[in-house]
């Protein structure tokens, strides 16, 4: 039952292309960081504070007309967009001090009603005060770091240091690129997207752990083979699992993206990007890091032997 068969089956030589993969990843990360620095994130009102009003019309809406009407009603800074369909709109207003909070949504709604002959329906109102926005932003950042920290601890307890470094690098890689993607296409980054990113962390790690697990097993069971071959073998053995799981997860995510409604779009999008990047990174990033750190069989031997040496008189 052990893996004694030679490395001669139809196998993809992933490790030979790891330099190309490294360059590819570096390019993606550079683009992501570049975009985050220059364009930043399009933060939603969860983090910036402000008002968001979603309204449903019975016919298609003329956005310019709505904008003009709002500007005339002293809402010059209002951003108006379609949401999901050409009949629904979303109005965003930065937090402002000069209006009574209790009535702002009603004021906006009555302005919207004045732009149409028919009933305009209030679908959603969100208001986040500046203090709450700041807190959510800080808490979100902390949650991300705490999650990374906890996982680092778990991985380093379960595996040895080199594997842990590989897993964390893969994780950071996935998170940066997913956030970078949101910065690049300027999709709104709100609380649900942040939740999604945390789920990506869980997923990406899940994937990487499976590969690392196999690498450890193969190192222990296969003799006299180069590290490169062992990594290749392990990746190939887990390849169909990696792809099948990513596929089923992507299937449900696309179902969520296309049928879950506009509100869930950002959430589904972050997970779709995260799962694709996570699949790639679990094949390449973790194992390439192991190669770079010169992984060898001794790294996976049981520690008990060293203790015996220590105890010897």
């Amino acid at each position, binding site marked *: 039952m052990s893996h004694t068969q030679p490395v001669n089956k139809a196998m993809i030589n992933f490790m030979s292309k790891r330099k190309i993969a490294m360059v590819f990843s570096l390019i993606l990360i550079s683009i992501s960081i570049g975009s985050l620095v220059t364009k930043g994130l399009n933060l939603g009102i969860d983090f910036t504070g402000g008002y968001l009003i979603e309204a449903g019309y019975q016919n298609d809406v003329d956005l310019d007309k709505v904008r003009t009407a709002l500007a005339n009603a002293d809402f010059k800074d209002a951003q108006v967009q379609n949401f999901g369909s050409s009949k629904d709109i979303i109005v965003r207003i930065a937090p402002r001090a000069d209006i009574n909070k209790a009535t702002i949504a009603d004021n906006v709604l009555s302005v919207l009603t004045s732009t149409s002959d028919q009933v305009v329906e209030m679908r959603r109102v969100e208001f986040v005060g500046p203090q709450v926005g700041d807190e959510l932003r800080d808490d979100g950042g902390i949650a991300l770091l705490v999650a990374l920290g906890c996982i680092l601890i778990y991985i380093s307890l379960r595996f040895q240091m080199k594997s842990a470094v590989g897993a964390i690098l893969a994780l950071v890689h996935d998170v940066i690129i997913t956030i970078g993607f949101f910065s690049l296409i300027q999709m709104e980054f709100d609380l649900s997207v942040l939740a999604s990113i945390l789920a990506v962390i869980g997923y990406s790690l899940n994937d990487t752990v499976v590969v690392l697990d196999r690498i450890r097993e193969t190192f222990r069971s296969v003799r006299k083979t180069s590290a490169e071959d062992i990594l290749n073998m392990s990746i190939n053995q887990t390849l169909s699992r990696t792809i099948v799981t990513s596929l089923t997860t992507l299937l449900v995510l696309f*179902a969520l993206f296309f049928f879950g409604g506009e509100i*869930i779009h950002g959430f589904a999008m972050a997970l779709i990007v995260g799962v694709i990047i996570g699949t790639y990174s679990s094949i390449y990033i973790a194992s390439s890091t192991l190669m770079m750190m010169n992984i060898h069989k001794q790294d996976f031997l049981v520690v008990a032997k060293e203790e015996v040496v220590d105890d010897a008189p």
Partner: protein
Amino acid sequence: MLNQYPLWKYILLVVVLFFASLYALPNLYGEDPAVQVSHRTKFLTADDQLIIEQSVKNLKSAELEQGRVLVRFNDTEAQLIAADALKESLGKQYLIALNLAPATPDWLRALNAAPMYLGLDLRGGVHFLMEVDMVAAIKRMEESLLSDIRTTLRDEKIRYRGVRRDDNGLHISFRELSHLQEAAEKLPRIFSELVFRETEETLTIDAKLTEVAIRNEKKSALQQNIITLRNRVNELGVAEPVIQQQGDSRIVVQLPGIQDTAGAKKILGATATLEFRLAEGTRADWESADKTGRTPLNSILYHERDGSPVLLNRRVIVTGDQIVDAASTFDSQKGTPAVSIRLNGKGADKMGDITRDNIGNPMGVVFIENKIETKKVGDTITKHRSTTKEVINVATIQGQFSSRFQITGLESQEARDLALLLRAGSLRAPVEIIEERTVGPSLGKDNIQKGFMSVIIGFCLVLVFMMVYYKGFGIIANVALTANLIIIIAVLSLLQATLTLPGIAGIVLTVGMAVDANVLIFERIREELKNGNSPQASIHSGYEKAFSTITDANVTTLIAAIVLFSLGTGPIKGFAITLSIGILTSMFTAIVGTRAIVNLLYGNRDIKKLSI
């Protein structure tokens, strides 16, 4: 003998699945439109139930539960008609709230089975996060202590020059050292919540609240506000409201199904109260005080709504706290809106005494409203407090007041709101709404529908994929996946955890990820078969080898989910909950569940080929 399960494992699985199906079942029944009737002060009885049943038409059923009567209807039309009829016939001591009650059959309810609790984003409603202005609460406490100190010094016949309050605490000044010493000896014995420090050179005593007093005051301000908010929410007629403390100074209020959010906000956040004071001087005095800005020592300058000045005595006769009941009505003579008021014993005595002594003199009613607002300029956040005090009515006292009387001078909506606020009690400290999330009922319905749709579609896609890719074993995995979905729903229903749209997304994601465990196992079995092992041995080692990998992979996701939960505002928490539950249940169904089926089908048999 490979691949055999002991009988108890099968029994365990069947029992788990049976109970899961049972507790997931209530979710299949819909909801009845209902009217919930309760009484302001007492629990309702079976007699009340009978009266209620007789005064509505077309009811489906009525039940008495925790002192409230819930009347169910077949359609919303009957519900609305009944609600109006009940308001009419029962009078204002009864609270009538519209509700959607789960149509769970009796035998399931007897087992404590209930459908999942839907979050506001799925059922529609308002979520408010309110911050209690603790600075104002402390200030209020210091001010009341200040007046107590004044009274104590007077009672103890200790002469003092003045007492005042500023941001550093309370300050008492004296003319003579002996008075200071006497006060320094007496005051600390009476006011344990203050720390006194005397400075003999300047003849002053400074007093500060102790840490404990501050903490207690904050705690009781929060508690008092929660009680008041609960009263106000009851007055609004909202069924199943949530009013909870969050952190040290915040209160969450959730009102499912409410439509008039602006009205609700006005009522919840309002700090309006009344004060009754005697007027001082003549109209000429009032006008000259308004022009010169100089007021006599014993009076304060106020303005009426039309801007005309009034001088009122510094001493308050009665405040809003002493009002026990209030109702909006119409003045019988003038026909204008009015609020009829009933005072408590202490308030009534004081009001009686003062009005008796001042017949023929004018008295003013002051309407007080506090507002706070947080503004952000650049990166600095500041709070702005403002208090509006206006005199709504100055009238000549015609005779001695009893505990009941009425005031006029308001518009009809104002009279209704003020009566409600006085009834529900005043807020101990002003509150500010710092977060609001309102979801309209149509969006709520859309969200449920779309969420449900994406679960079904995602689920079916995975089923088809697994069947095509793993054939016979795929079908086994699909059975496990279905069981998993049922167990997730059962656990969510049992915990009465709130299901939100992100929560549904969590279920969808779990469906996608739950098969991972089976994929890992099946891939291992295929590998073992390829290595030339027998089907039985392959099944055995496939499950065994995949186990630690599955555990590792799931624990990491679980860590992320737990962190997410602790970050938790409402909807996001829902996601973390469903994800965590999904991970745990999927491990059970994917490992134990599929193994049981596999063992049942293949175990202890001579198998040549596996359908994998």
